[in-house]
């Protein structure tokens, strides 16, 4: 009896070792590239051309790579601000438009309701990569070519199918009685929506926001095609200039610094709002 429980304990021990061994190995593979880049970006410029073995700065911590990066385009601040304007603008517009649409689809009856809903969702089937040329021409006709606002509108449109779907479900989950009680208290229309219902669908808003932010911050092809002047480049487009290098030489320090600037906000937002991100993913997967 005793030996049996001992054997079982020993087996549990070895299982635990195997489990954490595999876990740590896997975690290492997925984490190492981040750590190597972030650490390497703080090496002085004399080191930045060498292989990152070891990845951390050997002869002292330095911001050389960030200074070099700042020398590209209109300066790293300008491009970071461009990226922030586009991403945060996309978040605000996406939330506003999808909250309104989600409320409309959840609470009202109107002609062609289902057709319009399917129309919005169906845009998921069509890749935006295939309509870039007309988008370019339409934005030019609207006087929005090479503008961050134009790019923002495209990103909002790309977010709509997911966001409207999420917000409609969020409003569907709010009991009608709350709305009726608020109506009796004299709250109407937009006031009712903003004051009474919006706080109740905040988890949905968080989910929609985080997806809008990450997708707008990370998008590359549309920004590459639609932005034509240097001063307007978002970070990923700026990085193509860094990647191309100057006079045939690539400054890898600047690449590491640029990658660090681009990934830190994503990791930060995700780790902070992970719960809402996963909710969105599950909603998409279950659907």
């Amino acid at each position, binding site marked *: 009896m005793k030996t049996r429980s001992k054997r079982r304990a020993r087996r549990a021990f070895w299982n635990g070792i195997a489990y*954490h061994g595999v876990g740590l190995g896997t975690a290492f593979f997925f984490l190492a590239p981040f750590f190597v880049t972030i650490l390497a970006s703080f090496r002085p410029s004399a080191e930045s051309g060498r292989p990152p073995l070891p990845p951390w700065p050997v002869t002292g911590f330095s911001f050389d790579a960030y200074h070099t990066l700042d020398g590209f385009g209109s300066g790293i601040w300008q491009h970071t601000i461009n990226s922030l304007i586009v991403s945060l603008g996309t978040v605000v517009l996406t939330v506003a438009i999808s909250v309104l649409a989600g409320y409309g689809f959840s609470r009202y009856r109107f002609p062609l309701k289902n057709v319009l809903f399917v129309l919005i969702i169906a845009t998921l089937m069509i890749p935006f990569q295939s309509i870039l040329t007309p988008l370019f021409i339409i934005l030019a006709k609207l006087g929005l070519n090479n503008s961050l606002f134009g790019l923002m509108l495209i990103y909002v449109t790309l977010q709509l199918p997911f966001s409207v779907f999420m917000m409609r479900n969020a409003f569907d989950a709010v009991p009608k009685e709350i709305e009726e009680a608020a109506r009796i208290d004299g709250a109407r229309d937009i006031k009712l929506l903003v004051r009474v219902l919006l706080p109740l669908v905040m988890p949905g808003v968080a989910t929609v926001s985080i997806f809008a932010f990450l997708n707008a911050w990370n998008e*590359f092809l549309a920004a590459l095609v639609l932005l034509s002047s240097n001063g307007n480049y978002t970070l990923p487009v700026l990085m193509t200039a860094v990647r191309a290098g100057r006079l045939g030489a690539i400054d890898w320090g600047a690449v590491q610094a640029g990658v660090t600037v681009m990934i830190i906000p994503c990791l930060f937002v995700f780790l902070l709002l992970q719960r809402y991100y996963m909710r969105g993913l599950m909603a998409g997967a279950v659907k």
Partner: protein
Amino acid sequence: MTMPAIASSPARKRRRRSSGWQGLAYIAPAIALVTVFFVLPVIFTLWMSLHRWPLLGAPRWIGLGNYLRMFDDARFLAALGFTTHYTVVVTIAIFAIAFPLAFFVEKQRPLVSTYRTVIFLPVVVGLASASLLWVWLANVDSGLLSPLLQMLGLTERRLNLLATFDTAFLTVIVMVVWKIAGFTMIILLTGLQAIPTELTEAARIDGARPWQRFRHLTLPLMRRTLALALILSITGSILAFDQFYIMTSGGPQNRMISVVYYIFNQSFVSFNLGYGAALSIALLVILVLISVIQLWLLKVGDDRP
């Protein structure tokens, strides 16, 4: 049954009509954006694809000329072939990694949610950032991989990973697996967790071996999830652009030009806008077909539970 009563009451009727317009007003901004930036562009792409459409000068109607040109365009056919090759290989690679990972993080064990989060981290950074990161790691002089391989004695000299097709392709695959596997893992995990534990327990008690349980219980019950993960992986891979543009600039001997990359080149480098539009329609048709097959697959899954 209550319809006539409602219709006969004028007050109710008025309210319903006004609420109808109100509902439309709420969804109007969303519909306006989708119309201007999605529906119109799709129609416009179709119209452009029937013209020779230079950047400057008047477009000229050429009917199906662009579509006929496509079939004789060796570079387009090569891009199509490469994209198919890439899609098949990368999808197999992602599933080969993501499926074991999904099993690994399925059970509640110490640290399991930390492992899940860590594996998922690369999903939230951009494909462009990931490509830049890995193009540095794969660089022969300043990167990590070649010196590391040499140090470990696996290669005699420092290997220039991005110089030959096979090694460059392998590097891209490893990068994409690193970037995407966590996503596929989470999708598969939702499917795994939806399987009732009683079923697996019953099978275990009946003496089914792990492989038999996987083959005859897990896989059939995960049909819907599998179809979804598969379709997301396939459509995503067909639209690949960032990794080839940033990592290999089209690759050794221009052998890594994907379909979207080729459309980009035709439309925005050579400015053959009409031909680019026709290629876009071809891409669109391929993806819509895949979406239709997806719906059909999911439906088949419903019929045979």
